[in-house]
């Protein structure tokens, strides 16, 4: 005779509760904001603007859209785009270099695997670091930019610091998780050969996390390019500054040139990182 089925776990109820919770949160947010789908359709003048803006997308500008009143010795438009891109990239790279150092150091200290085989008292230090990186992540780079603008003025340092602080925090958090998730068997084997904790970690564990760390850093560089572009809205001379000026002057074809330039940069980064990832994995 067949044995009766074992009791099924009562998982579905819990899953349903969570999904209902998420759905309710969405509903509350929508009604709290008074959102309605009707608002998403632009009104007459807005509609005109949308039409103009998107029709400009197929004919991005290669020269100034309106050269009237511009000084005669002004550099060509594409030079301006190039200059804007270059500044955007230098801000992004400078911020990422600082973030990589900060993120790596803090990420090591925040990871559990770094403190393995060490005195348990170090756990307090580790948690202090975790709180610190949470604090660094909790303020957006645009808010920090406002603070640094007020204290330092429009200097490159202000924008770079504003980006580097939250980015260090994010990198530190993700790096520490990648380190802790990397396979540990090889590290254990090294400790069996009498290696000291730091050797075990740096030679047995760290290399296994490195491909992930590199790939994620590339993704964050992409984010840094975006953040650095937006810094232009505050007056830093990144591409965002020119983009805003063109937008305010209703020069939508110029706006699209800037946008396409940004897309090209992101695509180049993507191809480059995919190439590096292949080398790491192969």
């Amino acid at each position, binding site marked *: 005779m067949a044995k009766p089925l074992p009791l099924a776990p009562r998982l579905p109820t819990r899953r349903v509760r969570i999904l209902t919770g998420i759905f309710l949160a969405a509903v509350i947010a929508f009604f709290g904001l008074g959102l309605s789908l009707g608002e998403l359709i632009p009104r007459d003048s807005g509609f005109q603007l949308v039409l103009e803006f998107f029709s400009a997308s197929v004919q991005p500008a290669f020269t100034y859209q309106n050269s009237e009143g511009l000084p005669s010795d002004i550099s060509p438009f594409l030079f301006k785009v190039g200059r804007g891109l270059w500044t955007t990239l230098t801000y992004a790279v400078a911020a990422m270099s600082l973030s990589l150092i900060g993120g790596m150091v803090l990420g090591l200290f925040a990871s559990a695997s770094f403190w393995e085989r060490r005195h348990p008292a170090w756990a307090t230090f580790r948690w202090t670091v975790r709180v610190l990186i949470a604090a660094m992540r909790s303020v957006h780079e645009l808010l920090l930019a406002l603070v640094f603008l007020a204290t330092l003025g429009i200097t490159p340092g202000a924008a770079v610091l504003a980006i580097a602080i939250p980015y260090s925090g994010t990198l530190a958090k993700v790096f520490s998780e990648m380190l802790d998730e990397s*396979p540990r*068997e*090889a590290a*254990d*084997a*090294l*400790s*069996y*050969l*009498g*290696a*000291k904790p*730091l*050797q*075990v970690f*740096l*030679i*047995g564990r760290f*290399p*296994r996390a*490195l*491909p992930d760390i590199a790939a994620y850093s590339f993704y964050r560089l992409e984010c840094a390019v975006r953040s650095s572009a937006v810094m232009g809205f505050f007056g830093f001379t990144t591409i965002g500054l020119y983009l805003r000026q063109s937008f305010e002057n209703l020069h939508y074809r110029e706006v699209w040139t800037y946008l396409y330039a940004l897309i090209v940069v992101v695509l180049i980064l993507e191809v480059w990182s995919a190439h590096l990832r292949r080398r*790491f994995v192969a």
Partner: protein
Amino acid sequence: MVHLGGTPVLRGVNLEVSCGERVALLGPSGAGKTTLLRVINGVIVPRSGSVEVQDTNLRKLDQGALRQLRSRIGFVHQDHSLVANLRVLHNVVAGRLGQRSFWSSLRDIVRTSKADLLEVHRILERVGIGDKLYQRTDSLSGGQQQRVALARALFQQPKMLLADEPVASVDPTRSRDLLNLMTELAAEEGWTLVVSIHDLELAREFFPRVVGLRNGEVYFDGPAEDLTPQMVTELYSMDSTSSTGGEQDG
């Protein structure tokens, strides 16, 4: 007596292994073979009883001295004991981590000295994979990776080699070659060899002395030819009291 997670894993084990001896630990999964090996290299300290290795009582050693001792004991694991995405060269060089300071070990990895490079190559030639020197370790087969693990042990220059199921993840036709190589090396280098293994035939073929473990106790200890078929059945017979929940592998 050794406890893991509250369950005694080894009880009343009384073993003496002389220098240069070759011993196979035989027994079913959960019998305590892995634990016994870990006790010998001081990774696990027994709650009661004493362990003496190379005339030192492990209980009296602090962490530093234990590491010192371990740096003279090679250990070959079942698998996954190599840093998969490093080159073979660097995995072998890591054999001397326990004998090097932090900075010099880092230099060994980043810029291996000419002398070490030549030595590693010679060792790899000895274990039959000299051409793999610069290959990424995870591009090698399971059997080749175990040869890298052996090369790492050779580079370490230990007095004793412990191996935990070294051929369990190697394809059967290659395991004989690997054990052959391991016992040859042990004879050449004068290593004491203690190897846990679950294949009775292999144990008989390569090891003059066999220690049978069952439920954490020594069930048999003697020359391989004294092991009768009935004793083997007994050794592997399931026992309702063999609930060794604390151990992951045999």
